[in-house]
């Protein structure tokens, strides 16, 4: 059933359809309407969950950790400084292998204070170990939330579903709201692998020694490094798990098929623009204009960022002349985070493309189609100019 609603409502609806059981969240622009909608769903009885208002994002994740450890399907949502506030708990949740799902309405980070969109918040968390999925429009938001719950419980790793604050969270567009019965067939009830159980008493995530040790039952227990090694291995294996889950989603709902990257006019392209989120869709208009002028260019949107689908990206970009990575984040003092990841994914290729990096849209600086067109035209006209310093789009007040 098609409805016209905001991205936040799309996310909330996805959470409701996924039958989340415990929701603990703290409001923060631009996520707030998502939490408000969820509390409406709980109040009206449409969602049979426990909604726990907390006094901070740090507590929101703490409550989710507790709820998940007790064996329930837990959800929270946040943005920007809220995500950073719970940073310590993010590390905990992933080390504890809890299948929590969180929506992040991407927003820039202070100082200076901003409420507008960029990707610095989730990018700053890319090393934590959470799975990171990015949605390009409202349909992808609701679909990815549902897939995220299944992925999280399949691999026992928490998943964050990210979408552009304001640009997606607050804009309205049509999307299909899946039927509850179909979602129930796609997403089985949560059967936790390890949970607090009085019948089987145990301690979770206590002080763990550097070395392995023998437990009271004679079983060898892993040390810290084994736990973390296993997390990394399971994250890499999650690439295949997500591909399977996405294939199954296509079977149930007729949509999807782009778990790692979503390509537009890339097959015969000499140049490829790469971006994350709604920007990758805005770039399609630019691609069409340049194609009309005879430039063989396409755009690729990265949908799964962690684990990084390096092989899929290497396959997609191998043989291209120039790849232009446009991003709304920066690893300060170095280069764009996505740019660095793509560069290393292409390292072993014999015929690797020239790479360009653009930083844009920080703090919600408006991104005009004309600016994208100018930047891509410039890159395509001088592709061999090898440079590692990011270029910037949309700066003002520069002498």
């Amino acid at each position: 059933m098609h409805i016209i609603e905001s991205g936040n409502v799309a996310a909330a609806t996805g959470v409701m359809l996924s039958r989340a059981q415990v929701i603990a969240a703290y409001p923060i622009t631009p996520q707030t309407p998502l939490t408000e909608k969820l509390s409406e769903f709980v109040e009206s009885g449409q969602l049979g969950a426990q909604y726990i208002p907390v006094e901070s994002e740090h507590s929101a994740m703490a409550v989710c950790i507790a709820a998940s450890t007790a064996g329930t399907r837990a959800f929270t949502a946040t943005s920007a400084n809220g995500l950073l506030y719970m940073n310590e708990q993010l590390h905990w949740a992933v080390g504890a292998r809890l299948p929590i799902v969180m929506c992040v309405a991407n927003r820039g980070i202070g100082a200076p204070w901003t409420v507008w969109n960029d990707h610095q918040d989730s990018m700053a968390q890319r090393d934590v170990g959470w799975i990171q999925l990015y949605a390009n429009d409202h349909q992808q938001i609701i679909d990815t939330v549902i897939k995220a719950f299944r992925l999280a419980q399949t691999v026992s790793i928490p998943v964050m579903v990210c979408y552009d604050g304001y640009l997606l969270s607050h804009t309205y567009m049509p999307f299909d709201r899946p039927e509850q019965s179909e979602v129930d067939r796609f997403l089985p009830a949560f059967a936790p692998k390890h949970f607090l159980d009085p019948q089987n008493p145990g301690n979770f995530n206590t002080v763990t020694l550097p070395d392995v040790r023998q437990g009271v039952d004679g079983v060898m227990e892993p040390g810290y490094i084994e736990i973390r090694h296993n997390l990394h291995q399971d994250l890499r294996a999650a690439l295949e798990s997500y591909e399977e889950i996405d294939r199954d989603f296509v079977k149930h709902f007729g949509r999807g098929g782009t778990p790692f990257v979503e390509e537009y006019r890339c097959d015969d392209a000499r140049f490829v623009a790469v971006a994350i989120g709604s920007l990758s869709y805005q770039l399609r208009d630019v691609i069409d204009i340049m194609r009309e002028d005879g430039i063989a260019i396409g755009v690729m949107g990265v949908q799964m960022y962690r684990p990084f689908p390096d092989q899929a990206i290497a396959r997609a970009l191998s043989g291209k002349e120039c790849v232009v990575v446009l991003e709304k984040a920066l690893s300060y003092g170095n280069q764009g985070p996505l740019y660095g990841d793509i560069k290393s994914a292409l390292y072993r290729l014999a015929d690797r493309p020239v790479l360009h990096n653009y930083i844009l849209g920080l703090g919600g600086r408006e991104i005009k189609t004309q600016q994208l067109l100018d930047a891509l035209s410039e890159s395509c006209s001088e592709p061999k100019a090898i440079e590692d310093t990011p270029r910037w789009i949309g700066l003002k007040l520069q002498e």
Partner: protein
Amino acid sequence: MAKKDYCKMISRSKPGPGDGGNTGSWRVMRPIINLDKCIPVKTGKIACFNCWLYCPDCVVTKTIPPTIDLSFCKGCGICAEECPADAIEMVDEASQTEKEK
């Protein structure tokens, strides 16, 4: 506002009228001071000046009588709320403007 020397390192703004724009136009309710009830006016002395003290936009003058700068008063009503003499009434802005026309 001319911004010839913007600070490159940090984000900052300096105090001054109108940094937020023509906020007086946002007003839906306008504060009207009843001079018969206003304590500084009645006593002729420096008295409470709660309106001046509590105004979040500093549009009330600490004078006898207090005056309100309507170019920036947003009509929040805090002055009316804090006045110990109930001397300030919040009236509908649209009707006031009609009356003045």
